[in-house]
């Protein structure tokens, strides 16, 4: 279950206002509400837990520093994810290579998973890691984090039509990678 979902926009706005007023509990609440979402996106964007944790720290630091400038009529969620994606893209650029690519000939790590759903999940996870960072970000926000197309557009700073196009392309590419994964597992 997505921990960021239960809060309605007006509830969230109320927490934001409290936090802006210096309420420590509200600030803590906001961070915890977004903690898992930020970490999940960062982990899938960066591929390494330590990097994801570093990214999350950077996101929360930026969030705390700039919260007083935040216009609470805008929704916080896409704003937090925008920071997350930007931090991850910066880290990827710094790293120069997108991910430590899995050696094509190496055995896949979850080849022995028995359940079909688990296998599919593993395939999808692997496929995600092969996507271009921008497509990966769009899919993560839309499909995993459950943001609306409009929210993804805000997070990625693009038009909604671009988000639809990105999602469509990303899903197509993901399908190709999943097929490839399944083909190798069943060999």
């Amino acid at each position, binding site marked *: 279950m997505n921990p960021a979902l239960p809060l309605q926009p007006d509830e969230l706005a109320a927490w934001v206002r409290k936090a802006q*007023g*210096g309420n420590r509990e509200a*600030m803590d609440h906001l*961070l915890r509400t977004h903690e898992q979402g930020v970490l*999940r996106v960062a982990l*899938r964007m960066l591929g390494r837990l330590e990097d994801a944790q570093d990214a*999350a720290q950077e996101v929360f630091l930026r969030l705390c520093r700039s919260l007083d400038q935040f216009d609470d009529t805008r929704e916080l969620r896409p704003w937090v994810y925008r920071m997350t994606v930007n931090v991850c893209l910066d880290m990827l650029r710094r790293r120069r290579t997108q991910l430590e690519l899995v050696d094509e000939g190496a055995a896949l790590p979850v080849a022995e998973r028995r359940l079909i759903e688990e296998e599919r999940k593993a395939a999808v*996870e692997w496929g995600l890691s092969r996507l271009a960072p921008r497509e990966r970000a769009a899919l993560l926000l839309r*499909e*995993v984090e459950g943001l609306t197309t409009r929210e993804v557009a805000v997070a990625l700073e693009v038009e909604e039509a671009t988000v639809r196009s990105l999602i469509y392309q990303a899903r197509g590419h993901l399908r190709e990678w999943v097929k490839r994964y399944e083909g190798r597992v069943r060999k």
Partner: protein
Amino acid sequence: MTCEEARWLEFESEEARAHAAGCAECGEWVADGVALRGLADEAVPVPRATRRWLRTVVAAAVAAVAGVWVAMVPRQEIPPPPIPVVAVAKPVLPAVEVQVPTQAPVVARRKAVAPLYLKIETSDPDVIIYWTVEGGEE
């Protein structure tokens, strides 16, 4: 409805879902979507150090809101502003027409005020104080 149309709609309409139910390849797309959403169920571990760090961040942020920013991370040193180069221009003196007075200016003189004498009688009939106040203020 074609495969492309159903995929473009992200299988969110009734018609698109009906298409996926009868199309093997689109069924795979739908299954990928289910697996993607399943990734949200996984909790990413947050180490204790991160939690402690988070609390520090919160404390600092609250302090910042209260106007007492705690410098908890090395912040970029702000270089001093460059010394401004000031162009020195020769002052242009306005042309002043000098008028030579033809008659002495009339200066308002303060009226001469007569000194004020105060006679203060004390409890001792032999002692009387005389106080002179000269040129009283107007």
